[in-house]
């Protein structure tokens, strides 16, 4: 059961080996999420238009292992961008993936950049 989570490990900007073209700007709704398929992974991508920032994380919520985070609601806690899972409202920081409710599970995050209207997500493999 746990193997779903093993696929997702945080990638930092310096780790990136592959910049995957996930789509163009208009493919992604603003101030909420879209889900991107990359190989056997599902990645949730958020265009935080209001802050002019982009974030990406695993789409699977570590609480009950359902592929739903991209459908959650974005927001901020103490000014840190966060995502709330639509299932049970578990919230995670989009900056470092940490759990904001004090539970001991967190999410993997991935770098995102926008180049000439293309949205790119960084992976190591």
């Amino acid at each position, binding site marked *: *059961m746990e193997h779903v989570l093993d696929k997702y490990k945080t990638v930092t900007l310096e780790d990136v080996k592959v910049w995957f073209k996930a789509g163009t700007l208009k493919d992604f709704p603003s101030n909420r999420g879209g889900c991107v398929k990359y190989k056997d992974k599902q990645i949730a991508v958020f265009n935080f238009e209001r802050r002019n920032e982009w974030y990406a994380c695993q789409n699977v919520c570590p609480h009950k292992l359902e592929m739903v985070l991209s*459908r959650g609601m974005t927001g901020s806690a103490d000014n840190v961008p966060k995502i709330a899972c639509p299932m049970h409202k578990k919230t995670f920081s989009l900056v470092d993936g940490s759990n904001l409710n004090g539970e001991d599970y967190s999410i993997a995050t991935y770098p995102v950049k926008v180049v000439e209207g293309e949205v790119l997500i960084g992976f190591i493999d």
Partner: protein
Amino acid sequence: MIKIIVVGNGMVGFKFCEKFISKSGQEKYQITVFGEEPRRAYDRVHLSEYFAGKTADDLSMSTANWYEENNIILNTSELITDIHKESKTITTHLEKTHSYDYLVLATGSSAFVPPIEGVEKEGVFVYRTIEDLDAIMAYAKKIKANGSTEAAVLGGGLLGLEAAKAVRDLGLNPHVVEFAPRLMPRQLDKGASNMLQSKIEALNIGIHLNKSTQYIAGKDAITGMMFEGDHLLKVDMLVISAGIKPRDELGKGAGLEVGVRGGIVVNNKMQTSDPNIFAIGEVALYNHMIYGLVAPGYEMADVAAEQIIGSDKLMRETIDMSTQLKLIGVEVASFGDPFIENEEVTAIVFENKFNGTYKRINVTKDGKTLLGGILVGDSSDYNGLFQIYSNAMALPPNPEDLILGSRGGEGSTLGNAMDLPDTAVICSCENVTKGAICCSITDGTCETMGDVVKLTKATSGCGGCKPMVVDLVKAAQKSIGKEVKESICEHFHYTRQELFDIVKINKYTNFYEVVDHHGNGDGCEVCKPVVASIFSSIYNDTANKHVTTQDTNDRYLANIQRNGTYSVVPRIAGGEITPEKLVVIGEVAKQFGLYTKITGAQRLDLFGATLNDLPAIWKILIDNGFESGHAYGKSLRAVKSCVGNAWCRYGMDDSTTFAIELENRYKGIRSPHKLKGGVSACIRECAEARGKDFGVIAVEGGWNLYICGNGGANPKHAVLLAETIDKETVFKYMDRFLMYYVRTAGPLVRTSTWLEKLDGGLDYLKEVIIHDRIGICEALEAEMQSLIGTYECEWKQVLEKPRLMKRFSHFVNSDDKDDNIEYVPIRDQHMPKSWNF
């Protein structure tokens, strides 16, 4: 580095590490932990949940990398064999030697196995570790395959009853065997034990008291237990949980002082007879006692940690053994001295066999002091009674009021949390006093309940003290003149009602305008849906308008289910549907492989629609005359009806037609929480109208209108607003009532709770909406009129605008569906695979 070695990695050993690393100055120390079990410390208190599907990981007290993150060296599966006090070293069974500056023995206890002939037979187990549980599970499976159903538990104490529940969860019939004449002999008197026994026996668990077991029958494996008097109980498995035996062999071997009946003697600093060696938890003999509860163990861990780091914190003189728990679903509590009764002390006992409750309090004969008590079947008074006992607070003039409640007159007999002395322990799991909670607010360290929880850890254990902590935090905030506001969240310091007025007056139409002008930050999952709902209530916007800020289900116009698929509920007003439409629903379910069930509101629910399929499903439904049923919205759901005088020989009026009219009048209107209605054509009340937010019942000469009822977690009957009124008047009062609720209720507050909190209650509400006391009826009606008749089906809107369809795709870069969804069969349909973690 100063070296601390902790021997034992159970709950108390873990708590020592947790407490130690939170103290200032801890960076000068290196903690090394040795545990003989193969895993990290886990929660033994909730061990029986392992049978109910929790995994070893769920029970773990820490995350996998917790020890590493905190620079603690953890050695599992390694047993300490010797302590050499003089050289300050220990040896492990791997022949390794380690030196220490301080040694902490947290070796706990093992199960006490009485010397009964035959206990070595196959099928006899103890109940202590995850490995024991695995062995019990495997054996239970084996004997069940051979057709056995009976198993015994030796010991009718706390742990024995837990074990009995576990045995039952494994699908066997448990028999609890106890040597004493009553259950939980340390906590309960005979009357309480009898009540508990009758409640447990009602669950088909056998209770055998006064039983002395002579031998375990059977050749190689157990087949029964022979009691004194040649009475044989046939069982194929036995779980022993008849007490504990401290694991003091290490201490004994090292020449530390031990008690006559075991346990390593400690002083109030938790030091053993060697000042560099500490003992904590169930191995420690403090005041000639072994305390087999986790709370004192935690306190010992904290004292030892403080002592090592150089403070002078001491263990309390008397350790309170009060406890409140649920055993096999029965609430049991015992506090102070539960049994005391003598020339000076008298017991007041209240027993109610009708509802299965037993309450006892022990009060001094002058009626001034509460010394202890017992509660079985209903322990809701435990918190209040415990505070009165532990703080020696004054009793009411009639002490019996403490367990009977004050009969007549107002007010609670258990007093107010603010009357407690500052030293009162409010959270006994984390040992947090009233003073600590209140001071954290008054000295400015904390601002909110959340801050207090973070700082003190209060409420983070069993959670039983939460209501009291909330009260104290509020009272402390008030005491420093801080206005206690029911503000929505960190982004808005306003109530929903204030925000409603702000939006209406400024004519805002976009969430970010509101947060930029009147809030801060970017909003969150709490305030966004509130503002979206306010927009809908004012402008009658459908949920398609503010997709970004709509809550989970509103965003996709469907209810999310356990595996991330959705359910579809078309409107079936009043529960009336044609055969043709029934066929359509069946066809749609077959085509898309949906699970179908009839809901509580007389509608049909189709489960398991993927995000991608939702528009196609709705297209067929809408083409066949259906519309959205708003089962996903905080809005009117359904108006339930009986068949009325159209068919029923008792019907006094046409309830179905009225229900359909009401449903169509208010459908789509967004409100602070969901709204449900019902219409019955006579007082037999087949539509259960009085369990709804609004209910109409036909009577001689008109209709009675009831409001503010609901089912759910706190069922409440709706109350009578007006009697014998005609349909038009029902509509008029309903328009006013609903609009007044929509305008003034807090987020996610149902009508029943709203009425409870309304100053002046029902009488005031009647004044406002029937007699127009504050002159707002015209405005309320006008506002409602602007919503009625502007209804649009939001699913129809989606299907007409490709732009709106975009959100119904699982991926942005692929038309594939979510490949993570797995189904299992259930009866003749299917359901998502279970969440057994």
